[in-house]
């Protein structure tokens, strides 16, 4: 199967029909949400603390919605207008920007508590214009991302590397920009469930070095295809990660998640009629 990055630049590939496909296919939606949930877990934010987060390549807001359900405030960047228009129609809460991340980010130093990115980074390895040099675009991206994070902030990218050279290019660009960290590969022995996460640390608050989080499913033998782990959050029962002292794991419970999602949708007036002035989002006061 050809990789989308080889067919067209992202702003062309993610056109209106691709954008609507994304939010009408419940399987895609579930997969993106599951990977976001895992990325958020790898961010290991302070428990029960609403944070200010960046979503790189936010698309139609599938990843961002997981962040808002968890109580975070988010900002999303994407190069595709069609994807952002769908995000707007779905009334996501995050702030959306039309932006090419290969041009670097425009945020003041120490803006975000953390950053996630789901299924995007492989796009930066492409040269879609004669002026594009992937190495330079990656460098500019990671350097500006580093400075926009608070000290000790993390960035977690789920991505689909095409080959080991791409992994090497991406990881080394991130390290040159000042990040520490590396790759966490979940279910490494399964072709279907295997997922790559680049976990980056923008320094640490006390200058200590931070260990990489534990990958999932590393104990499964070669060739196992546990069907239940394809839907990661439904099937996977992560082993407790080793934590620093005093830190409690905040697990994302499936039922909890759905309840909050339902509540969120209800608040936005999705399945309930707009019968009260408190239902849905009230917009007023323009001038």
């Amino acid at each position, binding site marked *: 199967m050809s990789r989308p990055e080889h067919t067209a630049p992202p702003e062309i590939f993610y056109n209106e029909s691709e954008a609507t496909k994304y939010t009408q296919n419940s399987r895609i939606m579930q997969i993106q949400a599951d990977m976001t949930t895992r990325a958020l877990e790898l961010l290991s934010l302070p428990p029960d*603390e*609403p*944070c*200010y987060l960046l979503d790189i390549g936010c698309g139609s807001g599938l990843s961002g919605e997981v962040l808002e359900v968890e*109580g975070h*405030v988010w*900002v999303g*960047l994407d*190069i595709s207008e069609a994807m*952002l*228009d769908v995000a*707007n129609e779905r009334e996501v*809460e995050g*702030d*959306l*920007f*039309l*932006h*090419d991340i290969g*041009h*670097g*980010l*425009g*945020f*003041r130093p*120490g*803006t975000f508590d953390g950053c996630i990115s789901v299924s995007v980074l492989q796009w930066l390895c492409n040269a879609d*214009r004669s*002026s594009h040099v992937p190495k330079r675009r990656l460098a*500019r991206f990671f350097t*500006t991302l580093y400075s926009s994070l608070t000290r000790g902030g993390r960035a977690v990218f789920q991505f689909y590397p095409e080959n080991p050279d791409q992994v090497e290019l991406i990881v080394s660009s991130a390290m040159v920009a000042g990040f520490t960290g590396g790759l966490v590969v979940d279910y490494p022995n399964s072709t279907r469930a295997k997922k790559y996460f680049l976990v980056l640390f923008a320094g640490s608050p006390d200058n200590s070095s931070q260990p990489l989080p534990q990958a999932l499913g590393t104990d499964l033998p070669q060739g196992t295809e546990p069907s239940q782990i394809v839907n990661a959050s439904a099937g996977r029962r992560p082993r407790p990660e080793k934590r620093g002292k005093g830190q409690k794991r905040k697990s994302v419970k499936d039922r909890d998640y759905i309840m909050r999602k339902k509540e969120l949708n209800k608040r936005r007036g999705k399945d309930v009629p707009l019968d009260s002035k408190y239902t849905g*989002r*009230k*917009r*007023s*006061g*323009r*001038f």
Partner: protein
Amino acid sequence: MRLITHNMLQCPVKGCSKDNFPLRIEDAEIENADADFNPQFLKRMLDRIAWGALVQTSFSLGVAKLPESPGDPNDDEFLQTLHHVLLETRVKEGRMVCNGCGHVYPIREGIPNMLLQENEV
């Protein structure tokens, strides 16, 4: 775009490092959208807000009167005002202009267009 995020934005044009913040908002159409009041989040963000820029921006948009310097984070009335300015006030249409390099970032349907020309990066 909520004003909290405008307060974090600086001009991304390469080499633009003088007067690159805050981006001046022009011809704005403002929209108010209710958001859950979250004092914990506001307190967390208080240190990160560039106060002078926020006062200036909210004044120029005629949004709310903010004190010259940040109020007491345990004062509920102050937090409510801050909440309204930062999280319930959105710029829907208009443009942002960099005072340093003059780059214009148009805003359509609440989405600022931050795309740059290749010679700006």
